[in-house]
């Protein structure tokens, strides 16, 4: 009996563990780096944003803690901005106008997690080359809800004052989750005192992917007769999700499915490649510019694939056609409506032509490009301050920009104070700190100062005592935190790091004008 209970308990724990694992791995990733690290070359993570720039030192990362990044994007839910409460009021007041205004424009929730299981970096050729590599896990989940959908309770489908043209646009509706693993190897090379380049190759192993998207989905209500017309098309693609769906749906999976989940976590269900390229040009010893592209590539999802697609369709709804309804009578209205509804559903199904297949498909890795420049106004000053400016554009998101004030604090620390806008989510200040603590190099970076402002929500229930408050950022559309602890190579060296050597060292020209003798 006890054995049975123990087995049941272990099985439940196993299921819970699998579910947590699934949720964790459901947080599929796109590369998310703290932009404040762009000009902080003490930090190894700086290489992700400036591939052609050398870090301060070689490094070796402790497994799992060398680099970890968490990013949240929220342009949808900021309940603190919807409430007001003065000091003499017992309860907060919900302002519906604020809710309505908040849902104008893009409404997206996204979470990205990035962890390096293994990481290293080493100089070669007298610091003219730097090679780095590692294994990185990405997880990403996002949902986008159209403004018209969120504001439907405020507008309905026929509030002509709030809806221009009586049209509701649901084209932004979408959901995406992805997990992938990247085995990457990068090579940075200084070609001269002015030029340096970097390249990083990523072998990608797709673990799980699911995506729901719609195109041109709209709900039009005729202003005069209130007829409806729906249009659009949709698609669901998934790979490696089916056992998880069964697990979540039934709470139980077979041993074979458990094994499949484990196998897929290890070997993945798809693979692909991506490449990062960067170039840096030093216009002047104190003025540098760079350009870079990241994540150009894709993954071919091959196994455990389920795809559902619809055809572009347009459906009109003009009410029950009484003159063609057979045997229409008020007494049988319910039956007539049911029959009529079934007929419409059948027509819609036929129009949509929903098709299912298991054909492998390809997804992009979400390429981005960035350009930037850094200026060192006082290069001879010991703390070597610099000003940086970076523009970055990720596929499908608004342009990001960030300015940066960078400063060295001797050899043991470098900081960057930044200000900018990330992915169209409002302005924010950020900072990065790279601290050389003996053999350890500790990096902390965060891009949004707004995450420091929190609001407590306390729910009062008349029947019970006040519950534990819930704390949420007041209004932080973007939260980006990146941490890392690595083992710093050459930390025992007392001498200052020699400057990077160009490929062709200058040689002394003979002062004589006579011909050389052999």
């Amino acid at each position, binding site marked *: 009996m006890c054995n049975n209970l123990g087995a049941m308990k272990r099985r439940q724990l196993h299921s819970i563990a699998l579910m947590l694992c699934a949720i964790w791995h459901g947080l599929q990733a796109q590369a998310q780096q703290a932009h404040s690290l762009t000009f902080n070359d003490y930090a190894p993570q700086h290489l992700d944003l400036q591939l052609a720039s050398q870090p301060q030192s070689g490094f070796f990362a402790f497994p799992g803690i060398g680099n970890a990044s968490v990013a949240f994007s929220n342009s949808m839910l900021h309940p603190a901005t919807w409430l007001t409460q003065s000091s003499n009021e017992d*309860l*907060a007041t919900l302002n519906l106008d604020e809710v309505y205004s908040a849902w104008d424009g893009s409404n997206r929730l996204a979470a990205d997690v990035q962890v390096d299981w293994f990481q290293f970096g080493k100089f070669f050729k007298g610091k003219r080359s730097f090679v780095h590599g590692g294994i990185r896990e990405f997880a990403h989940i996002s949902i986008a809800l159209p403004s018209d959908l969120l504001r439907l309770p405020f*507008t*309905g489908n026929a509030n002509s004052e709030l809806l221009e043209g009586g049209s509701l646009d649901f084209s932004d509706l979408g959901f995406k989750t992805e997990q992938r693993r990247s085995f990457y190897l990068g090579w940075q090379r200084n070609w001269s005192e002015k030029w340096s380049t970097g390249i990083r190759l990523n072998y990608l192993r797709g673990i799980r992917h699911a995506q729901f998207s719609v195109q041109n989905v709209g709900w039009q209500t005729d202003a005069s007769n*209130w007829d409806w017309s729906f249009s659009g098309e949709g698609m669901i693609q998934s790979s490696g999700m089916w056992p998880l769906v069964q697990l979540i749906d039934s709470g139980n999976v077979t041993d074979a499915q458990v094994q499949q989940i484990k196998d897929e976590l290890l070997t993945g269900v798809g693979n692909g490649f991506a490449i990062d390229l960067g170039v840096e040009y030093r216009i002047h010893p104190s003025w540098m510019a760079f350009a870079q592209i990241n994540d150009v590539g894709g993954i071919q999802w091959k196994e455990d694939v389920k795809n559902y697609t619809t055809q572009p369709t347009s459906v009109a709804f003009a009410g029950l056609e009484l003159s063609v309804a057979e045997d229409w009578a008020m007494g049988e209205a319910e039956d007539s409506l049911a029959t009529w509804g079934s007929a419409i559903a059948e027509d819609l199904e036929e129009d949509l032509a929903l098709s299912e297949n298991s054909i492998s498909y390809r997804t992009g890795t979400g390429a981005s490009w960035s350009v930037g420049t850094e200026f060192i106004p006082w290069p001879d000053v010991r703390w070597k301050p610099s000003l940086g400016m970076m523009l970055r554009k990720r596929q499908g998101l608004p342009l990001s920009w960030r300015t940066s004030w960078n400063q060295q604090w001797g050899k043991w620390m470098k900081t960057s104070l930044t200000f900018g806008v990330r992915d169209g989510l409002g302005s924010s200040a950020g900072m990065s700190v790279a601290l050389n603590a003996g053999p350890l190099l500790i990096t902390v970076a965060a891009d949004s100062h707004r995450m420091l402002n929190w609001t407590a929500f306390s*729910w009062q229930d008349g029947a019970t005592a006040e519950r534990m408050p819930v704390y949420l950022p007041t209004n932080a559309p973007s939260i980006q935190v990146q941490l890392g602890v690595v083992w710093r190579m050459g930390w025992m060296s007392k001498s200052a790091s020699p400057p990077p050597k160009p490929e062709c060292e200058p040689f002394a020209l003979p002062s004589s004008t006579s011909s050389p003798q052999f």
Partner: protein
Amino acid sequence: MTVILSGCLEQRFELAEEMPVSGEANPAFALALASGSWTVQDALDQLESLDWESDPVSGSAMFVQPFELLAAAPFELPLINESLSEVFQLDATMAQALSNLPEGEQFDIGFETTWEWELPSMDSVDSLWVEQGMLSVFVSSDIPMDQTIQVMCTNLYAEGSPIVLELDLDYTGQLPLQQTAIVSTTDARGLFGNSAGVEVLFDWDIVFESSGAFVEKDANISIEVNWEEVMVSGAFGKFGSQTTVDFDVAQPLPLLAEWNPDQLHFADPRIRLSALNSSGIPIGIQWEQFAFISDEETWDIGGPDIESFPTISAATSVGAWEETVHVIDNSGTTPTLTEAMELQPDSAIISGQLVLNPANENSNFLTNESTLQIQAALEVPLVGWGRGLTWKDTIAGAISQDLNAGINPPLDWQDVASVTLRFIANNGWPIGLDMQARFLDSNDAVVDSLYSVSDPGAFHIAAGQIDESTPSNDSSYGRVVQSTQTIMDLILTREQALELLSMDCQGVEIALTLATQAAQDDAQVRFFFEDEFDLKLSARVECAITLEP
């Protein structure tokens, strides 16, 4: 963590179910509920007990109530039972000659006779078709000789040949000699050459063979011819002018009894009489009465359409039909049919006699299949005007409770600013419609109405557009040339709904009132089967959600 959070905590909100909400949400939801399209044909088809046709004159829709006046032979063909007796007596010379004839020698004599009689109702007879009958000849002779007698009916034919009867009388010493011959005249034909009556021609041939016996003077031969039970299947000739068949028909007209002439006016009713005659005899009609009646009164209809009724034409050949149509309408009746109908009669009575061959025409015929069918139809083209035509129905139900239950918690009528029912009508019918809804209490007393009749927002569907420039004598006069679109919003506001809730409304009476354009000015409209009426019903709910705790 707590310390960090406390340092970062900039505000705190206390939340509860009863927390106040500022501002309001004003969503509006609209939905097309139903639509329909109905032609005049569709509407009239719903009146299954009534017949509708297209008016052959104008093409407009027309109510038709057919009834049969007569279906009979115009005249009964006669049954013939005629007989003829003849005696041939020998004179002295003839008797002596036969006595002197050597034994075994033959003597042959021949002669012709005619047999005439008149057929009733026929001035002259050209020919007869005989369906049945027997022709017999009985001979009795006092002449002591063997005798052979042949009788040929030269104008009576059977299977294409004249009918012949033969009798052999053998003398065995006993007198008188007697013999009978019979022949069937089934399917026989008689050709009589336009005689005044039936005239059958006989050719007699008698052969005497001497037995050597003496023949007495005054010996005779007696002949009796009978044509009996002769059924005539066709008579050709000239039928005499005479009154024959009476007819007397009473046709109930229940719809007319319920007619309200103040509400409905039909401009061009008519009675169409259609006579089908398969006889070769023209037939006239002599009216005794043509009238509309009620329990209390009788209204005789006169005028040229009644008094100058045309002669029903004769068929041109056997097996053919000749149709004669006569229409009785307002232009030829006094009082007019419209006036008579508006007197709300419950029946029409039509009586009189058929007159055969009133113009004394020749070459008539009548067979046993000849029929005269006179069918009548009251035709009422939907041309005229209507006003104040009202249909009412009461829908019983706990309206107040239903209104409460119509919106589920947490919403209530406080969250609904108004409910709008939008009617979009494209009316191609020449009739407009008003609707009123009255709310009733448990005693069926009106406690409120949806609006007042004079309210500009009252429910009114305008009639289709009529081209008033069309001349009134044009068959398109009064026809809808373009449908009229009317958009009406019936708005039930929150205040009205709350008022209904407080009334304990237990039912709603729906009243529809129909009227044609300018009916009060006697303006006429015309309905066509293809006239179409489209109606679309949509609903819109405007909310004003305050979310007050």
